[in-house]
């Protein structure tokens, strides 16, 4: 028995030695190849919506989630990140538009647009890029304010505080004012308009809107509701 064992070990030894040597070689080769890293993926132009749908083999929901995940990580090249200031935002918006067509109910595309691409802070390029994003958000938000009012709020806040474009601020204000009494949309959306008029340099219009009896009623309703909610949260009263 021991002699058979020794014989089998002897016969297998060269093969094991070769396997171990080759395995060692593979580890060395992988160390040698370590510096070669994949290039940071560039964002291509989006395809035709019909061609994009074909990529999902009929499952639009899967395609939507896959594309949103891709958009979220498109500038990540294995730990190296492409700065947001280097993105072509017109192309980003084209992608947002084409992906949005796959699932208009979801808010995840808004989150990627607002919290990822909207987080650009480069002082040189941010205003222009955010203006493009806010213009798109306004357009999409106005198409379905009942469901997509967060897109409008984001655009309004950026137009008021960050972008510094008077024309956009005025347009956003006009559009928000047009939502007075809109079915399904939050009643308080028009209250965002006066600060936007002020940001657009039109203080007179802002004052006029503020003095409108309908807007006063809306403001009082919003104030009462907010006060009630804050009180529920922890005995806090805005009147105090």
């Amino acid at each position: 028995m021991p002699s058979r064992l020794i014989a089998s070990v002897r016969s297998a030894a060269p093969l094991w030695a070769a396997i171990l040597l080759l395995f060692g070689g593979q580890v060395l080769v992988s160390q040698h190849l370590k510096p070669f890293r994949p290039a940071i993926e560039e964002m291509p132009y989006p395809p035709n919506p019909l061609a994009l749908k074909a990529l999902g083999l009929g499952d639009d929901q899967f395609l939507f989630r896959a594309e949103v995940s891709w958009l979220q990580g498109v500038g990540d090249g294995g730990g190296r990140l492409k700065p947001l200031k280097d993105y072509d935002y017109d192309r980003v918006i084209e992608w947002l538009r084409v992906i949005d067509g796959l699932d208009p109910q979801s808010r995840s595309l808004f989150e990627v647009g607002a919290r990822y691409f909207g987080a650009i802070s480069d002082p040189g390029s941010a205003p222009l890029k955010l203006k493009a994003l806010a213009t798109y958000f306004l357009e999409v938000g106005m198409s379905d304010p009942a469901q997509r009012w967060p897109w409008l709020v984001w655009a309004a806040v950026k137009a008021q505080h960050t972008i510094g474009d008077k024309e956009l601020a005025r347009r956003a204000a006009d559009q928000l004012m047009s939502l007075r009494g809109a079915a399904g949309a939050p009643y308080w959306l028009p209250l965002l308009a006066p600060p936007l008029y002020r940001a657009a340099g039109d203080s007179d219009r802002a004052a006029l809107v503020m003095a409108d009896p309908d807007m006063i009623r809306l403001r009082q309703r919003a104030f009462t509701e907010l006060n009630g909610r804050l009180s529920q949260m922890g005995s806090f009263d805005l009147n105090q």
Partner: protein
Amino acid sequence: MNALITTLRYVLITAIRDRMVSAIIVAELAVLGGASLMAASALAEGRATGLAMAGEGFRVVMMLGLITFISFHVQRMEETREIEAILTRPISRATFVLAYYTAYAGIGVLLSLCAAPMLMVGLAAGGAGLIEWQASLALECLIVVAIALFCALSLGSATASVLAGIGLYLFSRLAAFFRAIAESHTGLSTHDSVDHVTTWVIKAIAAAVPRLDLFGQGQWLVYGPGGGWGLSELLLQTAIIVPLLLAATVRDMHVKRY
């Protein structure tokens, strides 16, 4: 009936012995792990992302697994002259095809039924949407088994059969889009006659293949039933295409090989 039960038992034993069952379950667990990872990394609606990814992954695993298993199993039966031996007994070609289809389909449906519990446990899926998605996956398996059996018995070679089965499956999922592109005239060439012929050919092929793009919608997992169609349309499609493919398989056995 006895022949059917014997065949089912034989195919099930082969599937277990070939580790097809365990390989599909392991692959589905890997898909669930990958989908959970993607769900965790999503900025918003992580669970919906995970469900859509896992749903698609399960379907791909099931379809590739069934096509590969059936193709290689049929090839092995041909190499060992098992098919010829069976057909020397008083059994018709139609019974032979029906018995093997039932056995493969039974395994396909049983394996597909693992998907819903995994989605329930791994990603908290539930409701009518999950039931509809699970049922549509089972129906899709029935069609894919018929496609794979047709390719395997017609082509003989396992490699050719796998490639043809995958090709037919992909085409069945894409045909509606090809037809839509042809009808919308977005892919025009410079010659009207070429366009006309191409459009006609695409429409003809699209009409002949099953509408697999309607099966297994991820939106059912995320939002529940909806989208304009449901199980009744899928049942109708399955009820038409499966007998058609089986009849073509029987006809092919008569004419070409046995």
